């Protein structure tokens, strides 16, 4: 039994920030509010179909993924750049070896399929199974895509071989 129409307001309050971030990383900050709003409106409309097989956030990310694709296609939006802050880098000696700008560039160069799994798993914190549910693909595909995406990122960060820079 899915959430009743009354629940959607509470769901929106609880998950709006996560959905907004999810959308902002796919269609950009300007269009993120539209995508997030469309996501909750769609969720409201199809709430009766939600059977609780996955978590609410996964269900919402699945809807948001489709809304973002639709908006990106209709508005001809390119994938937005994801910036990284250096503050946290001071906490980890290892992470200092990563060139953040190069990483941002490398993320932009990834195909949308590879980029989607990286964002879902690394930034949104979804498990392989949850990412597979959002993208509606097998878990093995998620694992494969993630592996290849990281190989590309690693390669982009160490153009001459050796450790990543």
């Amino acid at each position, binding site marked *: 039994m899915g959430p009743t129409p009354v629940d959607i*307001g509470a769901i929106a*309050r609880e998950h*709006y*920030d996560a959905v907004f971030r999810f959308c902002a990383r796919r269609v950009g900050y300007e269009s*993120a509010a539209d995508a997030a709003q469309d996501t909750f409106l769609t969720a*409201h409309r199809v709430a009766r179909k939600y059977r609780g097989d996955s978590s609410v956030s996964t269900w919402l990310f699945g809807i948001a993924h489709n809304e973002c694709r639709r908006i990106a296609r209709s508005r001809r939006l390119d994938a937005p750049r994801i910036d*990284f802050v250096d*503050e946290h880098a001071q906490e980890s000696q290892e992470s200092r070896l990563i060139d953040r700008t190069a990483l941002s560039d490398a993320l932009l160069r990834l195909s949308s399929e590879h980029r989607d799994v990286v964002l879902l798993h690394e*930034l949104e914190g979804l498990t392989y199974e949850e990412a597979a549910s959002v993208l509606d693909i097998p878990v093995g595909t998620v694992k494969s895509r993630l592996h290849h995406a990281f190989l590309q990122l690693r390669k982009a960060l160490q153009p001459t071989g050796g450790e990543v820079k």
Partner: protein
Amino acid sequence: MNVRDELKAYYDNELAPAQAEEVRQGLEFDPEAMQELEDFGRISQVLRNEAAEIESYGLEATLGALTAGRRKPDPRQERAKRLGLGLMGAAAVLVMCAIVFPIFAQAKVAARNETAMDMATASSPASAEFRFRDKAAGRLSPGTGGLSPRGSARAKSAVDGSAGPAEAPVQPPMNGAPISGEAGSPSLVVKNAELSVEVDSVPAAQARVESLVRSNRGIIQNSSRMDAGGPIVMSMTLRVPVSRFEPVLATVRKLGKVQTDVVSGEDVTAAVADIDARLKALKSEEEQYRALMSRADKIGEILQVKERLGQVRQEIESLDAQQRTFRSQAKMSTIQLTLQERPKAQPQPPAPVARTWTQKAWAGATGNLQVLWQSLGTVGIYLLVFAPIWLPLGLAGWLIYRRR
């Protein structure tokens, strides 16, 4: 199992325990794989911990939209939507014009063709009498012989063989001229007739007419014959005494089938009386000038009076000639006669076979289908020709509308 393919899953702890153990053992003997695993870990740490924070906005709008059950319209998008709809509307209007105009034009052409067919049908010999009746009803064009409404009414009655009520007031007296008018004064009426008779043999009819005119103390003023291989046509102008006008006319009508029969009369009594009065005055004036000239003793006066006298004399002679013409016309009536040979009998087209309702329906449906295809083809051509106008508008409108 290839250890390197499972490194990321191993790092993410997404492998089954047995697989994870296998990878762990493999890593002990593969320093490159270990290095790769460490690199994956560093990248993953940055991705998870250092991505820039994103501050959300629009929660209230979303909650409002959820309450209203629809998306809150964005003014900018609404404007774009209206613009798109407007452009598409303009394109639709253009398309409609392109569709309606050719259909309208085709309907006009069809109506024109129908009229032309009607006229063609009316020109067949079988409908000659109908055409004549139509003309006699007063619908003749100016160039078809100049029948006056009065004469037309008479022509109709002559063909019908009956005198209509409208004929009575304008029928001139046929007993000859001059006759007594309303005031008891002698009236002068010029009577004319125009007859067209279809005969079996024009030469035979011509001989009869000539004999008829001679026996009635008339003359044939002129005649012309046209024989261009088709039916012979003979035109004659007959002049007969007024007293013989009616009998001659009656005899001529019996020569064949009367096609046109127009009789007209013009009362010239007033005109003749006016000429008489003017003649009388001019003659009196002439007498006075003559008396003046006899008394004049200066050359200048004599010349002046002589000049004026000449003018008066000229006017008198002109009026005298008019008076003679009127009297002559009143004495001798004119008949414009056209003798036309009856066309040889032509093989009649086979009578149309009576059709059943199914045949009629089939013929109607196929005809309408043809019209439909023609209309669609016309519309298609118009759409194609006007495409540079409506297509960009419609396309722009659709694109703008689609972007919402």
